């Protein structure tokens, strides 16, 4: 029934890297769309909704960071993801990992967010450069260079991590 909900959910998953956060972000985005806070530009509803998802994600992310800087003692939870996000890639564990999908998932998650989002929008959501530029609010030239960087990084890390390349 809700067209583009799957796309919104996938994009939110890749941005927030946690299913629970993704659910919250998608719900917030759909409600924002419903309330008409962000007027539909042109007729491309998918890009429009994904742009709202992205805004909701960065708002939520900023709030999380603010919380992290001034943690209330009772809120502090050692399972909070910061240590995980900060973890550096370990080439040795990558090379023994035979599960390509998991390796690829991890390598994509480790990309900087501005690289990861253009890669996801291009390869998974199949958006064109112009639509990606709309969603991420940067010029098309920037979309192209970020896409190239994302792909290069991914390819390089994959090649060193897994014997025989992709």
């Amino acid at each position: 029934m809700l067209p583009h909900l799957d796309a919104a959910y996938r994009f939110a998953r890749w941005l927030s890297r946690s299913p629970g956060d993704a659910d919250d972000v998608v719900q917030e985005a759909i409600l924002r769309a419903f309330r008409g806070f962000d007027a539909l530009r042109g007729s491309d509803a998918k890009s429009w909704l994904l742009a709202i998802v992205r805004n909701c994600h960065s708002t939520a992310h900023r709030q999380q960071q603010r919380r992290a800087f001034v943690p209330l003692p009772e809120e502090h939870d050692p399972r909070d993801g910061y240590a995980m996000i900060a973890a550096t890639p370990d080439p040795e564990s990558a090379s023994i990992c035979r599960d390509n999908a998991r390796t690829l998932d991890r390598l994509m998650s480790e990309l900087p967010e501005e690289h990861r989002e253009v890669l996801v929008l291009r390869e998974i959501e199949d958006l064109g450069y112009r639509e990606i530029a709309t969603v991420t609010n940067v010029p098309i030239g920037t979309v192209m260079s970020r896409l190239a960087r994302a792909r290069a990084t991914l390819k390089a890390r994959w090649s060193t991590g897994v014997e025989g390349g992709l």
Partner: protein
Amino acid sequence: MRCAELSRSQAYFDGEVDAISAADIERHAEQCAECRALLQGLGQIRTAIRRDMTHGRAPPELHARIAHALDQETAIEAPRPVRRGQSTWRVRPFWAGAFGGIAGTAVTAALAFFFLLPSPSSPLLDDLVAAHVRSLMPSHLIDVASTDQHTVKPWFSGHTDVSPVVADFTQQGYRLIGGRADYLEHQRSAVVVYQHGPHVINVFSWAASQPRSPNDASRNGYRMIFWKVGDVQYCAVSDTGREELLSLVRLLQDASHT
């Protein structure tokens, strides 16, 4: 040394170049090992990502959660649901084109609440509202997408039985976004589509054979304003307020007299 065509090769891979450039790049890649390797690498990455990395579909729980949240939302806006006797059409604001279906009845109640006015019963009114609502469904809005009146107007002559006044009023807040053919009163009517803020306004026009309709009507929360120029009957339909719709009607009337 890095090949200067790498960026174009990537654009080619992503389907972002025209046919002539594509042929260029294919010829170039036959000579250039660097671009060949790039294209091959891009293909490998794409294959791997599309095979393994989708994070699938939104889980049913999330569907349910969002449906519930939308219902809550409309419940706040419409504390007193209003039912109309013969109403079968759901009323949807423009965004619902993107999210067709969900919470439609609640939205109906919310909007009917604001626009509850007596309206004469007429099959024409039903047809107009039906055509308007249908146009808000995904990809039904526009047959010829253009903000240029000189593109939209000639298009009608081949596709409809009337030649309505077409003008862009972006300055005044009514942006021409295109045209569409629709079937009304047993003829191919012309529909000029405007965007006003988040609202879509459909301006229907057809050769008037019937006695004149009421000047002003509303159905299921949609406002309709009728007027006639020569033998062409016009009707503007939208979910905007009456004054906003009337402003566009005045602009169109002025345009057809100049």
